[in-house]
């Protein structure tokens, strides 16, 4: 039974959406303020052409490579008789616990000459392929094997089955993972800065460093925002068609494992090499240097750990509170209106953090100077940037809570909204915890928005790592890098456990 949403819920959601759209408004306003001729002068430069080609190339090459790595490892550990499948299933998710900028710093320290597009591709694909691997793994576990069995009985070879039967069914997972990777590639700053690969985002950070919130930062920001919108559009179009082709849901019957035979050593070798490149190489020097660290640093480390934890917690709670109403609206009152409002929530989060931060700097200075450089502003940035992580998780959680319970509570005389909250929120707790962990993980690794917006004197693990690493102070940076990795492990473990829990 679908009811129309209460007016209070609608008002709350609309107000929140307007808040989430502040960075989009800033980008549009900034364009208008610059004026056509100055904008043209700023954008029609050779330099902008270089940035555009770098940014587009890393998207066109990086996304397919991460998809091949992610889907390939997921298929090997889930659908073949690969020896050590369980071990490799964990190895393939491990890079997610290493922030991309830490990984890049590790690579640059081992091979100082790594640079440019090649370096960017190497570091980014190794850091991001788990983002495709996880959804691909979860989907593979839930696929109905009967289609593959029919194909096999019709005489198709295993390779053909993989390409023509299995992969088409993974389209949603591939598109979803690929979209996240593409948005990460557009927004990445730290990882590319270490290896001298310039994209729109790195150039915006440099423009910010030379002119603060000046016209050159804004004009580059507009192009980047457009690129994000194009990426979102491509994914939405592809998904729109894929939905109809999607077949089958969870099956209790495990699929028959493909025998690798002579190819097994090759598969083991490939997974071992990828795992080593993604985790062992970047972390070796970092661990080695942490032994050379000055013990006096531990005091600073502790302070940074506290600041990081408080800010991430604040961001996580904020994102949950902001995401709940719209998740509710989307699952309980699905309609064209709710889909539009949901889209409004997510547009801003596809903008890179540096643009969101510049928008919040400009808006708070002009509209609410009292909030400038306070924890509230950083929290708002974290909410805008990481909202989809909370939204997606909460939406899935809400969909699993039976609505009949709420109706029962309502029948017992509770006011509708209160009834729903009392009954549903407790059942939603696991989803709330997962959403919070995901947002906190992102916020703890956030660099640019934190640098711009945090209260004077704030030191997070990410900003301290950045400051030490920028002055090539390896022993000074290492403990912050290791702390970031250790902080990330529980959240990654939680995500990994979820792919298992969902389907078995």
């Amino acid at each position, binding site marked *: 039974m679908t009811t129309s949403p209460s007016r209070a819920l609608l008002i709350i959601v609309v107000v929140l959406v307007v808040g989430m759209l502040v960075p989009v408004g800033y980008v549009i306003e900034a364009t208008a303020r610059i004026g056509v001729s100055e904008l043209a002068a700023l954008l029609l430069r050779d330099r902008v052409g270089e940035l555009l080609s770098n940014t587009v190339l890393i998207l066109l090459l990086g996304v397919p490579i991460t998809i091949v790595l992610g889907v390939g490892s997921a298929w090997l550990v889930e659908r073949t008789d690969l020896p050590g499948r369980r071990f490799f299933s964990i190895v393939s998710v491990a890079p997610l616990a290493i922030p991309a900028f830490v990984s890049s710093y590790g690579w640059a320290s081992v091979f100082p*000459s790594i640079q440019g597009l090649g370096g960017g591709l190497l570091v980014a694909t190794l850091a991001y392929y788990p983002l495709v691997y996880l959804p691909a793994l979860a989907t593979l576990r839930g696929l109905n094997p009967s289609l593959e069995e029919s194909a096999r009985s019709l005489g198709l070879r295993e390779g053909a089955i993989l390409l023509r039967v299995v992969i088409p069914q993974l389209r949603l997972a591939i598109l979803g993972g690929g979209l996240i990777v593409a948005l990460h590639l557009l927004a990445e700053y730290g990882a590319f800065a270490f290896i001298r690969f310039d994209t729109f985002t790195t150039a915006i950070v440099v423009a910010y460093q030379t002119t603060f919130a000046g016209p050159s930062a804004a004009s580059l920001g507009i192009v980047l925002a457009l690129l994000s919108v194009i990426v979102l559009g491509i994914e939405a179009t592809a998904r729109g068609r894929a939905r109809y082709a999607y077949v089958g849901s969870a099956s209790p019957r495990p699929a028959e494992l493909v025998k690798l035979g002579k190819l097994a050593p090759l598969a083991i070798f490939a997974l071992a090499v990828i795992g080593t490149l993604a985790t062992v190489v970047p972390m070796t020097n970092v661990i080695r240097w942490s032994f050379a660290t000055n013990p006096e640093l531990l005091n600073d480390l502790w302070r940074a750990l506290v600041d990081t934890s408080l800010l991430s917690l604040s961001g996580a709670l904020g994102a*949950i509170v902001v995401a709940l109403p719209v998740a509710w609206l989307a699952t309980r009152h699905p309609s064209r209106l709710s889909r539009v409002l949901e889209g409004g929530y997510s547009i801003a989060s596809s903008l890179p953090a540096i643009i969101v931060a510049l928008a919040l700097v400009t808006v708070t200075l002009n509209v609410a100077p009292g909030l*400038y450089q306070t924890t509230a502003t950083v929290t708002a940035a974290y909410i805008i940037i990481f909202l989809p992580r909370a939204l997606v998780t909460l939406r899935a959680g809400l969909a699993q809570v039976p609505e009949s319970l709420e109706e029962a509570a309502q029948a017992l005389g509770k006011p509708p909204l209160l009834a729903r*909250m009392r009954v549903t929120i407790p059942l939603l707790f696991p989803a709330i915890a997962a959403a919070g962990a995901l947002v906190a993980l992102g916020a703890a690794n956030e660099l640019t928005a934190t640098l711009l917006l945090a209260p004077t004197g704030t030191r997070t693990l990410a900003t301290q790592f950045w400051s030490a690493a920028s002055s090539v102070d390896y022993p000074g940076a290492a403990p912050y890098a290791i702390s970031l990795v250790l902080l990330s492990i529980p959240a990654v473990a939680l995500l990994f456990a979820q792919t298992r829990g969902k389907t078995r």
Partner: protein
Amino acid sequence: MTATLAAALLLLSSCTGVTNSDDDGAVEGASAEALVVYNAQHEKLAEEWVEEFTAQTGIEVVLRNGGDSELSNQLVAEGDASRADVFLTENSPAMSLVENAGLFAPVDPATLDLVPEKYRPASGMWTGIAARSAVFVYNPELLDESELPSSILDLQSPSWKGKWGGAPSGADFQAIISAILETQGPEATAEWLTGMKDNATVYRNNIVTMKAVNAGEVAGGIIYHYYWFRDSDSGGENSGNTKLHYFGDQDPGAFVSISGGGVLKSSKNSVKAQQFLAFLAGVSGQTILGEGYSFEYPVGGDVPAKDPLPTLDSLNAPVIDPSKLNGPEVIDLIMQVGLL
């Protein structure tokens, strides 16, 4: 369970409220009376200064660290709403930017008297607190002494293609270009920058440039002197294979950049802020600079430079009024050429 949600909201608002509850919401972990210093100088040097100042006066100081250009533009964007009391830079153009926006209060005359006239602007709206010299760092295995450039202007010639590097996105390098602009004019500067775009490898900052020269990735680079002395003093991991070449001869490449300090007009703590600036320019502050980890040149209180630095006067730098250096025009030129 509404209680849980309410508790979460309460926790959130208390997280965000902690810093809003007092008058000066911007400062974390310090009282409202703490001086807020927008610091573009090296964090470690600034921390050494602050520690000693607080020990002497009991006045708390919080640092907001960033680069010259970003913090100066930030101060201009903030205007009177800024929470900064003091601004410290590594180079002069950023000080001029803030001065030209009318945001500085005049420096106490007693503080100005501590610093020789050539190390501060005639306006008296800010003062020099340190100095640094441009140098050419080179790898003798890749570049013979006889091949060294006699002027920084030589580096634009095609014979230097692929042989040198620099960090044009940094305020340090931009200050050196502002010296070229001041001595050679805009056309010659644009030409030099075009030569740089063709010839030079672009690095993120001075240290990375020096490291690349040390590793033999590139034969030479333009940096400031003290990065080399600092690294050499702590074992030479990133400078051991390199040597320094001073241009001298009043060449724009022998430019000595003045690091500045000033008090913001909008400061609500102006007495303490002036006190902090007097401390920096005085014997205590300059001694920390002269004897500490920094290797930058002291400019006030007759404090000598740290051994083994050559004396500042022996560098034969071009004579340039620090307030004439034009940061925004330099950035425009760099952008036109496409280095940014």
